[in-house]
């Protein structure tokens, strides 16, 4: 794991001091809210419906135990005892007082955490595969490259006032757990036939009101040239991205307007003029960063565990947890454990301070001091010994964290919606809760299988509804909350944008409609097709008919 050195720490201390001065000036009335707004946004502080919200960066979704405990502490002292994990692997505190914000940032900085670039028109916190360093699928450790980008993008002098926010995701596995294809830049690491590492560079994906699956503008960027190439992409965007209309300011609009080929040509031309020796990271620094991630102290273990097998046979709840939440690890005798923050009836992505502490304790004792956040708003214990799985499961059960529903229908992504968000048209959280109730029967949920339901409270699409197998979008119809359903989206390696099912439904019909869609799917699916596969095979018509049959 990368540990901040004196230099990184001094940087955070300087940042905290700067913000403390700005807040003091605001509280003394020397700065108006208008003047203060861009400054607080640079530190992740938003003004929401009821209070300030602070978004804390979790670079590439990776936390050590001390950091996780500190987040719990802040939730308890400054919020109402919980935090909310976001689809970009960050955590938000929803009930912050302005006067407390500088102290919170100081306390975060003590454990190498911060809120830099969690908002504003800059390069946002980079996200990465939450299974990094644990999955056998990966061709390299994406955290190495995430850390390279974290440092390079931090207070970047040229790219901190872009036309709009800029989000980068990195994965090094063929199964994409980062939604790379719907980011401003998605990087997918691959090895050439001769083993050379490179990135497929995807640019101009995105969600919001104009969703796009991003085109690939470079098939195999030599890994060592990453920073100069990013510089070229960002420079073309900074110069030519639209600034006259915030809804047309994302890089996806520029790429779509120029066409992917022309955009790629402009980037190549700019890249050719950049002095690589100055722009690319020296090998020595890359080796230093790589070294920090290469030291995970794995033990040599047998591939099977008698304790694990015995418990699986004896305890059906444990067996179910293993089927749904436990994933193969690259080291024999270890497993990756997903910790669901989607208990039926709770707010998706919320964790209480107590739960965070349980997760931290488990990470300390059983997962080599490592805790991850996923873009689906869950947690991961990346390195658990098979022998330890039963005790870990029991501890999670006690804390209400053992819901065995990863990637199942109740593992819903939902944005804060009208419960917190000033831009919302409709509530998202209660809708998620109603839908999840329909799948409270775990046998039924498992029979349905992988089903990604995602809910946004407005067209900004923070809940990823465009890339859901079943997407739900809150709309306002003459002051009433309605919900538009869409089908067939995916944010994974087979990315696609969901298509609208039909007229929007009132709130009390949404969960029922999802139920109807699932029944239809079960009645027509072939073999072990997922909902998405069935939809892609049979198309919209049967689903549409099932939901709107009554209306005829």
């Amino acid at each position, binding site marked *: 794991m990368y540990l901040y*050195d004196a*230099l*990184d720490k*001094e*940087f955070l201390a*300087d*940042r905290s*001091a*700067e913000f403390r001065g700005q807040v003091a000036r605001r509280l003394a009335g020397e700065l108006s809210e208008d003047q203060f707004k*861009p*400054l607080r946004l640079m530190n992740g502080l938003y003004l929401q419906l009821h209070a300030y919200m602070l978004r804390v960066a979790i670079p590439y979704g990776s936390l050590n135990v001390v950091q996780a405990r500190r987040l719990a502490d802040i939730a308890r002292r400054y919020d109402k005892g919980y935090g909310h994990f976001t689809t970009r692997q960050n955590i938000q505190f929803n009930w912050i007082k302005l006067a407390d914000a500088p102290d919170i940032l100081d306390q975060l900085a003590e454990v190498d955490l911060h809120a830099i670039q969690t908002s504003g*028109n800059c390069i946002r916190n980079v996200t990465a595969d939450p299974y990094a360093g644990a999955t056998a699928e990966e061709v390299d450790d994406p955290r190495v490259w995430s850390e390279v980008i974290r*440092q*390079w993008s*931090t*207070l*970047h*002098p*040229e*790219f*901190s*006032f*872009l036309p709009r926010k800029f989000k980068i995701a990195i994965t090094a596995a063929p199964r994409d757990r980062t939604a790379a294809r719907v980011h401003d830049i998605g990087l997918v690491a691959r090895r050439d036939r001769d083993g050379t590492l490179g990135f497929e560079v995807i640019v101009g994906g995105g969600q919001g009101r104009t969703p796009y699956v991003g085109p690939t503008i470079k098939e195999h960027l030599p890994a060592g040239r990453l920073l100069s190439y990013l510089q070229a992409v960002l*420079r073309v965007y*900074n*110069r030519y991205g639209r*600034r006259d209309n915030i809804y047309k300011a994302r890089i996806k609009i520029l790429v779509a307007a120029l066409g992917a080929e022309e955009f790629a040509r402009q980037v190549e031309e700019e890249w050719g*003029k950049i*002095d690589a020796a*100055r*722009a690319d*990271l*020296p090998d*020595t*620094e890359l080796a*230093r960063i790589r070294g920090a991630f290469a030291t995970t102290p794995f033990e040599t273990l047998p591939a099977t565990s008698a304790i694990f097998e015995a418990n699986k046979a004896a305890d059906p709840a444990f067996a179910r947890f293993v089927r749904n939440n436990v994933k193969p690890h690259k080291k024999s005798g270890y497993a990756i454990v997903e910790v669901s923050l989607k208990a039926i009836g709770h707010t998706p992505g919320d964790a209480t301070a107590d739960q965070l502490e349980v997760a931290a304790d488990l990470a300390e004792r059983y997962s080599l001091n490592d805790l991850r956040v996923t873009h689906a708003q869950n947690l991961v214990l990346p390195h658990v010994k098979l022998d330890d799985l039963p005790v870990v499961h029991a501890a999670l059960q006690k804390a209400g964290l053992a819901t065995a529903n990863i990637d199942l229908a109740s593992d819903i992504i939902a944005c804060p919606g009208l419960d917190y968000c000033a831009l919302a048209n409709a509530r998202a959280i209660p809708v998620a809760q109603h839908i999840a109730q329909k799948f409270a029967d775990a046998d039924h949920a498992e029979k349905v299988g992988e089903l990604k339901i995602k809910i946004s409270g407005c067209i900004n699409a923070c809940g990823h509804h465009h890339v859901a197998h079943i997407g739900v979008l809150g709309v306002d119809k003459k002051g009433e909350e309605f919900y538009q359903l869409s089908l067939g989206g995916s944010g994974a390696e087979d990315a696609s944008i969901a298509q609208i099912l039909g007229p929007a439904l009132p709130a009390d019909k949404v969960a029922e409609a999802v139920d109807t869609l699932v029944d239809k799917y079960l009645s027509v699916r072939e073999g072990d097709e997922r909902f998405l596969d069935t939809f892609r095979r049979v198309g919209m018509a049967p689903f549409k008919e099932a939901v709107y049959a009554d209306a005829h």
Partner: protein
Amino acid sequence: MPTLIKLAGGAFAQVEDDFVHVTDEDDAPNVDAVILSLARFQAEGEALLAAGRKVGVRLESDQAVEDLSYDLPRLSVVAVAFPKFRDGRAFTSATLLRERFGYRGEVRAVGDVFREQAGFMVRCGFDAFEPSDGSTADEWGKAAKRFRHVYQRAADGRAPAFEERA
């Protein structure tokens, strides 16, 4: 008359401005040093330079530095405009002036110029500033030097973190 702050030898100081900003509508004032729009420079620059005047050009954020590249050796100042705090194109313009075109004259920040961006400006190669937030040279310098470390190579030549570590 806006304050002009200059950076020289690592220090920020308020100085007299020798240059007069001349808009496209103004009659040409009878002074030794003028800053003109790109269009006016293209029309009148040759004559002014021939008459021994010092000439600067004001580059708007939607104008390409490349259009100036041929004339740069003869320009005393390039005034790069920030029409709004949020418009970051000027950072690229300044970077290209310094790094790509090797421009050694004054690069001046004009327009919406706030001390919160002082550090970014200095790093991109600006060495003169007309703050619009009333900053003094002292306040400007403090803001610009806020961070003891930086993470990237940039036009200011400061050693980034990875060189400090090596």
